[in-house]
Structure formats: C-alpha cells, structure tokens
C-alpha cells in the first residue's frame, strides 16, 4: 500500500504585490482521502497548491507545510495542472514517462517502467494511442494522458489544479469518476471553482474566500465518491456551498 500521509498546513502566510493572499491560514488535509478546495477565481487556490507542490517557495516564518507522518513532502507529490502540459514533440507513451526521464536524465526507460506506463494508459483507456502524438488527441483524451502521467509518478500525494475545468460536462463527469477510481488510497488535494465537481469527488470540501483568504466553510459528505450530483441532498449541499462562495469577508451575501 501507499501509506499516504495527511497534510498539515500551519499558519501559512503569503504576500503578493504588498497584500496578503493568506494570513495565518491553517488547514488539515486528511490522509488517503480526496480533499477539495473550492473558491472563486483569484482567491489564491492555485497558490496554495503550488506552495504544497514546492513550486512556490515558502519563506521562513511564513508557516509550515508538513506531512502527518513526519517525513518530508519533497519527492512524494505528483502534480496535475489545469492544462494537460503534454509535450507536442513526444509520443503519448513518452509523455507519460516524462518524470522518469527528467529524474535520471536518460533517453531509455527501463522495461518495467515502460510496462507501468502502458498499464496506466490502459487505466485511462488510451493504450491504443500510445505511439500517437498529443496533437492527434481530443482535449478530453489529452487530459486523460495527463492523468496517466500523474499516476505514473506513483506518489502518495496528488495535487490537482482544476484539472478538468476546460472540458464539456459529459467528459468532465467521465473523467471525475475515472480520477476517483484510479487515485483511490492517495491523499488528493483537488482545487476547483465548480461546487458540483467538489461534491462529486470530495470527501472533505473546503471553501476559501476573502482577502486575505480564509476557510469560511467546510463539509465532509459521507456518501461514497464519485457521487451522483442529481441526488437531492447533494443539490441542497450545492446551494450551501454557493452561499459560502458568495460570502464576502464582511459576511454579506452577494
């Protein structure tokens, strides 16, 4: 098993252009569960994700991000962005194995790793396109390849930055279900601006609003994921999430 740890964000502060994006923000992401961070555009969701991923550096004194098992996060995180970030010159299979090449700086990938990459392509239903170039794929397929690349990294923690926001509703629903299935057992931190997406995949849902941003609402729906978003209790929860999203720091409803 992966032994996915939880993540503790303790008193995180981030300054951008002289203003606090977060000030003393604390958040606990439960182990081996999918946590969704919901918030309006520009609130700092992606920044928070990039802090965890190590893309943005956390200045000393600006808080702490730690895994609950006490081991460092570095090297245990896989990241999936909003755009597929596939390399147009490389085949689908080579794109999936990108991490292996980047870590060891070599052209040839071992047979086991190649098999593993093929297995993940099969998981996302694109094994027959392994040798194609990304330009020949539809947007939904490209996002599937990006998911396979994330799986290939085989990390206990997976960070997803609005991964399916550019897709149409049907593709989105399909890929959400697929992601939930293949990411089981990992600690997933999924950033989205879509309340329904959060309700479909999130085992813990946090709403981030205001400036500096704070968690102003959180909920842990008990039903198994992926949830059917047509259920009445989910629709009721959606209304609550939307209300929380609209709430400003002053507490008014917009």
């Amino acid at each position: 098993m992966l032994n996915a740890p939880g993540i503790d964000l303790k008193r995180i502060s981030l300054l951008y252009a002289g203003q606090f994006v977060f000030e003393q923000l604390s958040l606990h992401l439960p182990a081996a569960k999918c946590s969704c961070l919901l918030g309006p555009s520009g609130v700092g969701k992606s920044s928070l994700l990039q802090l965890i991923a190590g893309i943005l550096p956390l200045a000393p004194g600006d808080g702490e991000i730690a895994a609950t098992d006490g081991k460092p996060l570095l090297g245990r995180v896989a990241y999936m962005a909003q755009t597929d970030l596939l390399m147009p010159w490389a085949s689908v299979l080579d794109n999936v194995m990108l991490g292996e090449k980047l870590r060891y700086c070599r052209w040839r990938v071992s047979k086991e790793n190649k098999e593993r990459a093929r297995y993940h392509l099969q998981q996302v239903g694109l094994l027959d396109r392994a040798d194609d170039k990304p330009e020949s794929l539809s947007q939904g397929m490209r996002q599937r390849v990006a998911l396979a690349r994330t799986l290939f990294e085989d990390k206990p923690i997976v960070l997803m930055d609005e991964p399916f926001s550019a897709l149409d509703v049907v593709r989105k629903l399909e890929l959400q279900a697929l992601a939930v299935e293949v990411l089981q057992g990992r600690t997933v931190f999924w950033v989205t601006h879509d309340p329904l997406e959060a309700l479909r995949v999130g085992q813990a849902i946090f709403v981030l609003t205001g400036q500096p941003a704070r968690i102003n609402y959180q909920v842990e729906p008990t039903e198994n994921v992926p949830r059917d978003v047509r259920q009445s209790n989910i629709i009721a929860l959606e209304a609550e999430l939307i209300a929380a999203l609209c709430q400003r720091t002053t507490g008014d409803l917009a």
Partner: protein
Amino acid sequence: MLKRSLISVISLILLWQILIWLYHLPPYILPSPWQVLLVWIRGWPILLQQSIPTLWETIASFILAAVVGSVTALTLAYFTWARSWLFPWVLVSQALPTFALAPLLVVWLGYGMSSKIVTALIMMFFPITSAFYDGLRRTKPEWLDLAKTMNAKKSATLWFICFPAALPNLASGLRVAAVLAPMGAVVGEWVGSSHGLGYLMLNANARMQIDWMFAALMAITVWTLLLYALVDTLLKKLITWH
C-alpha cells in the same frame, strides 16, 4: 505562390529592359537581361565550376554555425555565469563589421577556404545563437513547474523540455542563416581568393565585364534561394510543433 513569384521576376526583368531603353545605358554600366542570359548560356561551365568552391564554403560554414550557435545558446541557457561572461562576446560578433574583418581573416587564415568559412560563420553566428537562446529562455513556465514537481535534474529539464521546445526558434535562426551563408562566403572571396563566385566577380569587375558580374550575382541568388528552400523544407519536416 510559384505563379506570383514568376510574375514578379518577369516584371522585374521587363523593368530592367525598359530602364536600358529609356536612358540608353551602355552595356558596361548596365547590361541588358539578354546579354546576361548570353553569358549564362556560353559561360555556364565556368559559372558552375566557380560555384563549387563557394557552395562548399557555404555548406561547411552553415553546418559549423548551426553547431557553434546551438552550443553557445545552450551554454548561455544552462550556466548563469555564462550570461554575463559570454553574452557580450556574442553581441560583439554581430557588432563587428564583417567586411572590415574579412581582410584580417585572410591574413590570419590564408587564401584557402578557412578564411571564407570563418567570415560566413561570423555572419551567421548571431542570428542562430540569439534566436535559439531566446527560445530556450521562453520555455512555458508551466512546463518548468511540472518538471520541478517531478524532481527533475536541471540538465534533464534543459535537454528534454527546453531544447525541443526551442527548436522552432532555432529553425527561424537557421532560415535567416541560410540566406546569409552564401553572402558570407562571397564576402570572404571578395577580399582575397583564387576561386569561387566572389573571385569571378572580382575579376569581372576589374575588367569591366559587367555582364559577367550580373551573371555571377544571379548565380549566387539562385544558390541562396535553393539553399533556403532546402533548409526550409527539411526543418518543416523535422519540426512539426510550434
């Protein structure tokens, strides 16, 4: 495309002939298109013979410039210190007037091919280096972020992401260089040589054989266009992404 190019070439030749008729220009000032064509018909073995060394110089200098330019750009992109130490010299290579430098190169490297190759190399070095380096610096930041989360080695990021991503930029540099290459070789020949199209022009100029000058000039133009077409076709086949 071809049709339009043909029309513009024919119009230019017509304009040339009209100019001669209008101003009664003698052949030693401006030969007529027909006289130049006659030189081509009668003198093609000489033109071809003198083209061969020029073409060798062109191809050799082009390949050399592509290698030297690419290596310089990669060095600039990889080593932070190289930017402050090396980049001024890259700029100097472009700031130096090649025409003034060419005689020196002949003194240093002799009458042979090497002085011509180096002259052409200096002309092509900057467009190749700057285009490629620019591309290397403009790698999508999201790709670099992804590489960072994958614990990528710096050299691997350069090799597997920045390098292929910047190849379209290198291709633009090479296209510019393909046009400059024959010119560089001919400039080198003008300064001092014992063969080549530049040498032919130098001789024709001294003897007031302006029709031969024109014939040689056109040969250079044709070779330049052919080289460009070849390089462009090859690059389009090899680099399909943008």
